[in-house]
């Protein structure tokens, strides 16, 4: 295929892959906007948060902690904990995005969220190539979508009180299940998945906030390290 055709195919594939996530984000964007207004933030302050932080879970938690006087260190510290998993995600993405030009590479990294990262990793691990158009195609619309709905949230107030009622909260779970299934199909390792689920469940009981995500992920990585065999060299 000529380069322009490849680029277009990559972008189209990216849009198809990320589309359910865009829909799934709608209620959460609206809620973040509404919560921001209720917490006393100006519209521009909330938009500064959505655009510069761009991390849904940590935004929810921060807005929940948003009281006067502002517990600045507690909010920033919690944000760091919630987003620690990005360290693992960036490390896992490194070998696949190293070859990309630096602008799209850093756009992807700075706007890396669970969803676009997962799509890019799935693409990289199944096709073994990651093109710029695909990386930007899962990242830019996902980023702009969050800005749009959190802005509308500040304007429209509380349209959706309970995303669970309409099953919106399950969209992410369902998408992630299909992604995990996809990773398993190329990877064939079950032990990291089982270990991650078990450790996450235990950690959720014992640790505050969203530490279970980071600790559970580490459990999965540890299982991968423990079960590593040299024969993996053949396809690794």
């Amino acid at each position: 295929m000529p380069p322009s055709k490849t680029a277009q195919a990559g972008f189209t594939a990216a849009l198809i892959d990320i589309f359910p996530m865009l829909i799934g984000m709608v209620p959460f964007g609206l809620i973040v906007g509404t919560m921001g207004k209720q917490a006393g933030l100006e519209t521009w302050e909330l938009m500064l948060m959505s655009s510069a932080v761009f991390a849904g879970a940590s935004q929810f938690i921060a807005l929940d902690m948003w009281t006067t006087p502002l517990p600045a260190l507690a909010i920033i510290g919690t944000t760091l904990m919630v987003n620690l998993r990005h360290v693992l995600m960036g490390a896992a993405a490194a070998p696949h995005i190293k070859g990309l030009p630096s602008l799209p590479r850093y756009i992807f990294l700075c706007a890396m969220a669970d969803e676009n990262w997962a799509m890019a990793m799935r693409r990289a691990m199944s096709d073994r190539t990651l093109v710029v158009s695909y990386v930007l195609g899962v990242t830019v619309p996902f980023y702009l979508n969050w800005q749009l709905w959190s802005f509308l949230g500040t304007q429209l107030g509380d349209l959706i009180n309970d995303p669970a009622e309409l099953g919106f909260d399950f969209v992410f779970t369902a998408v992630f299940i299909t992604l995990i299934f996809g990773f398993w199909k190329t990877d064939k390792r079950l032990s990291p998945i089982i270990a991650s689920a078990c450790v996450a469940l235990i950690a959720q009981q014992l640790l505050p906030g969203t530490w279970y995500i980071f600790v559970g992920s580490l459990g999965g990585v540890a299982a991968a390290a423990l079960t590593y065999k040299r024969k993996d060299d053949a396809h690794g």
Partner: protein
Amino acid sequence: MDSVSPWLVILGMAVVTVSTRLIGYWVLGRYQLSSRTQSILEAVPASVLTAIIAPMVLATGLAETLAAIATLLIAWRLPTVVAIVCGVVVVVLMRNVF
């Protein structure tokens, strides 16, 4: 602490969040990775996604667990979009039952 402006706190949140996004890449992106390291890193996506959804799937209620199983079984044979839509429909129906 009384006088910290909101935008300064938001900026602090942004700095720590962007740091988490860059550090893993910078630290491991520099090295030629051994096949052992690569094999371990390839387990990261499934591990992270599993950790995120494990409480929702296994410790929320019967509706979520059954909907998750339905999603997985449908994804086995049918297109991903069908599995996602069915999973959401099942969870909404089940939540109205339980």
